[in-house]
């Protein structure tokens, strides 16, 4: 109890943080000088077979068989006005509540054993850039499934008493592991719900389910047509950054303009993750007060040109096969004829 009395008795007892007096005299609370952007990271290499996939341009998205290894280059940049020693390392990540979240510190996923960066420490002068490399080696006995990680870049916290701050920036890793080809990606837009936020602005929330074998990052837009008096509105962008884990169903929200009449509207939502696209329509009416209308089942819209890219390849394959068989049979009958002729002689 003596300790307790001491705590109560102190006049200005709890000094959470003492004034630190850092040697540079700089203040984190003060505004940064103009043009001092900060610490940056960027992916420099992407696989050729994902050239059309915008996700693969900003994150490491790959499928590896157990026992396989890949390396990818990335770039660190110092856009501040002072020299920095950047620490770079791999941490694990999780998908939680529709968000891709890098775990505190390094986390404890398997990816920590599989992925290594070189060099781990990069000194950079102001406005300087440098490349580093990550090597991801999947062990032969790795079980199939997706693993998530982040390649982080950070500067060590300034020493001193008080609240140390670390601001880090990272590249996401979506690594699928398994034998054979990559698990197919797919998703379904299940319902559209018209809502009104407490501040009076209408919004549409779609329930989207990931029915494929890989995590997805949603982007897309909403178009409103057939409104009151034949009005049309949009396209309105969907909130980006919603990450769907495999098997998960999460809301994807589209914020709309306050001036929109209540409806009814024919709403068409186009969503995409990488090169995979899905569209759905539903007739919705925005509630008058801040609330959510009942969800409306969304009717899927067939994608234009779906599967078109595979058709010539398949047709060509069949044609070539027929050609080879034809030549084979022709030469076979020719040989038979010749054989008959020789045996007749």
């Amino acid at each position, binding site marked *: 109890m003596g300790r307790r009395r001491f705590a109560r008795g102190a006049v200005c007892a709890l000094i959470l*943080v003492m004034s630190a007096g850092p040697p540079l005299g700089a203040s984190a609370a003060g505004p940064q000088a103009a043009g001092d952007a900060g610490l940056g990271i960027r992916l420099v290499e992407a696989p050729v077979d994902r050239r059309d996939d915008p996700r693969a341009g900003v994150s490491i998205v790959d499928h590896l068989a157990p026992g396989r290894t890949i390396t990818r280059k990335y770039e660190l940049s110092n856009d501040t006005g002072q020299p920095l020693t950047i620490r770079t390392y791999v941490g694990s990540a999780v998908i939680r509540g529709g968000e891709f979240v890098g775990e505190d510190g390094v986390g404890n996923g398997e990816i920590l054993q599989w992925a290594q960066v070189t060099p781990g420490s990069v000194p950079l002068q102001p406005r300087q850039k440098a490349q580093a490399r990550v090597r991801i080696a999947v062990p032969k006995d790795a079980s199939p499934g997706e693993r998530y990680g982040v390649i982080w870049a950070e500067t060590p916290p300034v020493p001193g008493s008080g609240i140390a701050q670390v601001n880090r920036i990272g590249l996401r890793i979506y690594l699928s592991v398994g034998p054979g080809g990559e698990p197919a990606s797919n998703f379904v837009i299940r319902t559209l719900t018209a809502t009104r936020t407490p501040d009076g602005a209408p919004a549409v929330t779609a329930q989207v389910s990931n029915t494929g074998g890989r995590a997805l990052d949603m982007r897309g837009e909403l178009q409103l047509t057939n409104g009151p008096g034949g009005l049309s509105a949009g396209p309105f962008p969907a909130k980006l950054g919603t990450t769907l884990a495999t098997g998960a169903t999460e809301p994807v929200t589209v914020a709309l303009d306050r001036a929109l009449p209540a409806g009814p509207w024919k709403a068409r939502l186009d969503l995409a993750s990488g090169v995979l696209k899905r569209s759905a329509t539903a007739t919705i009416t925005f509630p008058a007060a801040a609330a959510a209308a009942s969800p409306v089942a969304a009717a899927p819209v067939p994608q234009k040109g779906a599967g078109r890219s595979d058709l010539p390849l398949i047709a*060509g394959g069949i044609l*070539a096969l027929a050609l080879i*068989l034809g030549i084979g049979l022709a030469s076979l009958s020719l040989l038979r004829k010749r054989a008959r002729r020789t045996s007749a002689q």
Partner: protein
Amino acid sequence: MRHPKLLTLAVLAASTAGLGVLAPAAGADTSGATFTLTAANNVTISVPTSTVNLGSAAATAGTLTGSLGTVTVTDARAKLAAAWTVTASSTEFLLAGGDNTKAEQVVAPTAIAYAPGTATQTGPGTGTFVASPLTSMAVAAPVGAWTGVAGSKTVSWSPSLTFALGANQIAGTYNGTITHSLTVAS
């Protein structure tokens, strides 16, 4: 009749080989081949240049609130459909020189709340920034997310932290680390 049999086998082999070449390479392992991504500009996060002092409060006050300083994220890529998310988390705050096995000498991250405050946006880009407060900083959770339609943008916010103090909290200086983590979604 030995010749035709041999030939049939050869024809079969040729046709399967042809199929192998022409069929879509479903299981093909092409992850080794890469191309180079070029970009003049980047997404960056500001680098803290000092520790932060939240000031002091009486041990009996119950809470202590203070500003953490400005966090600035610049997306200079000027791309269509840009998105990034910042998460925040905290370590335990430990009494300097204290016995950190005793609850009254530690402020747990579950007792630390994060209020992002009002964000300021500069630059020509259009889009929305959604700031989210946290009632606990024990696990990394989003505090700010940008969805851009087009153009470059700089977003700054000055979060404030609120420490909930125990009734028996020991007086002294407490140290810990707050981490902001930025990843780009698009």
